[in-house]
């Protein structure tokens, strides 16, 4: 069943005087229920714009976005957006626990939201850090807080905007395994945007490759690697190397041109 469906989505921005600038041109893609989709594209290709439109954070100029069978006009309760800049999306004046309570406090009230924060904190390996403040944590741990916050909302789908691009390489591998684990345990649907070819292959069931602006879909590839995926073994799998070669080749060729 299609959980998220973007149909001929176009985005234009008004320019001073002239005709509007088209940054995205009739992009169509869909995410199946329970699927892990990676959207791969060079920096500045409008991946985040696409994800924000899927999340109902940004209106499309034309085309339609449907999630869980309904047209998306505002942020839908089924999907939560995980931001690239964890340091800007967390509230610096709140403790880790209160940052996770953020997800539900407007529905449950502050006290019950705090109680509900413990389980997701444990799931991302941060039990015992509830009373810390974001500035006391490393970047990787802050992104874990952001993931715990998203999980606390109890979403069916996560929309992840380059969530690991701001942390060091080892932490990135850690967080990737964490997300894979959560995805399979919670049977989530995930759409993840990235410019990292290996990350896309390592995580996803399917990869949608985007072009430069104005953004269109260049190609769609099934990853077809066995699960569970291992941070070391999977990266040495012949299929992994084949995909990596193919995708880098394409991205680099377009980059040069």
């Amino acid at each position, binding site marked *: 069943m299609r959980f998220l469906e973007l149909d001929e989505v176009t985005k234009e921005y008004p320019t001073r005087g002239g005709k509007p600038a088209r940054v995205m041109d009739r992009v169509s893609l869909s995410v199946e229920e329970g699927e892990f989709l990676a959207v791969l594209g060079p920096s500045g290709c409008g991946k985040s714009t696409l994800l924000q439109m899927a999340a109902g954070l940004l209106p499309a100029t034309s085309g339609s976005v449907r999630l869980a069978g309904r047209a998306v006009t505002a942020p839908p309760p089924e999907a939560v957006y995980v931001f690239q800049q964890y340091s800007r999306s967390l509230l610096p004046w709140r403790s880790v626990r209160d940052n996770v309570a*953020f997800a539900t406090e*407007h529905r449950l009230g502050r006290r019950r939201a705090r109680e509900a924060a413990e389980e997701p904190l444990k799931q991302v390996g941060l039990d015992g850090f509830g009373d810390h403040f974001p500035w006391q944590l490393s970047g990787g741990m802050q992104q874990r807080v952001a993931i715990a916050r998203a999980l606390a909302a109890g979403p069916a789908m996560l929309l992840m905007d380059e969530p690991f691009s701001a942390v060091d390489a080892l932490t990135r591998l850690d967080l990737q395994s964490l997300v894979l684990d959560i995805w399979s345990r919670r049977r989530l649907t995930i759409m993840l945007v990235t410019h990292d070819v290996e990350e896309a292959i390592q995580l996803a069931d399917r990869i949608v490759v985007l072009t430069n602006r104005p953004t269109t879909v260049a190609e769609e590839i099934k990853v077809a690697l066995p699960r569970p995926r291992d941070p070391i073994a999977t990266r040495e799998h012949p299929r992994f190397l084949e995909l990596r070669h193919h995708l880098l080749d394409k991205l680099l060729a377009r980059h040069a041109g």
Partner: protein
Amino acid sequence: MRVERLLSPLPGLLVLAALLLGLEWAVDAGLIRRALMPAPSTIALRLWDLLEAGDVWAPMMQTLRLVFTGFAIGSAIGIAAGLAMGWWPAVFRLLEPLVELIRPIPKSALVPPLMLFLGIGFTMKVTSVALVVTFPVLVNTLQGVRGVDRVMLDAARTHGWPARHTLLHLVLPAALPLVLAGMRISLGLAMVLAVLSEMLAGEGGLGFLILDMQRSFRVRDMYAWLVILAVLGLALNWLFVLAERRALHWQRR
């Protein structure tokens, strides 16, 4: 390290002590006429008398009450208006011309017309204090609201926060550093307007006493009350900085 911290205010205190000693000497030597400026030691003695007789508290409380009430009302109006103007563009367009018109007027000049409308009582004085407090708080709150990170606002949206919840639990705390900076500026101005309106109203309070003592040639008393006012201002500012640091504990990075 600890010793260094204890010693760091020493040079500044030495300058103060030197200045006081110099004044004492200059008055003793007849370089300054006693009628204009009595020796610091005699002012201190007078101050001691006032404290011992318990005459200090009533005027001080009167002025304090005025400063606090005016500061609270002015801050509340400034924060509410700043939030509303920063959050709803329609409110901004509605109020901005009015704010820009009243803001540059020195609020001291508004005390005489206020006396026409409100008389010389507490209401008039509180109104003038509140008036001067409002604008720095308003302008800073407005800036604070506009500076709230878009990513943070999007985080609230993707989690389904209603607008009211976002305003109270995200926008207001995010703007708090600037709001408090505005309030600190306003606290000083509140003292100025409190003293001035007391002088013009002539109904007691520290401001009235300072002017009254000067007019009745009780110069020693005038300086004693001036010292009390200075200490009060210092204490208020110190308390505010302390409260501010507590409220913004998360900013230490």
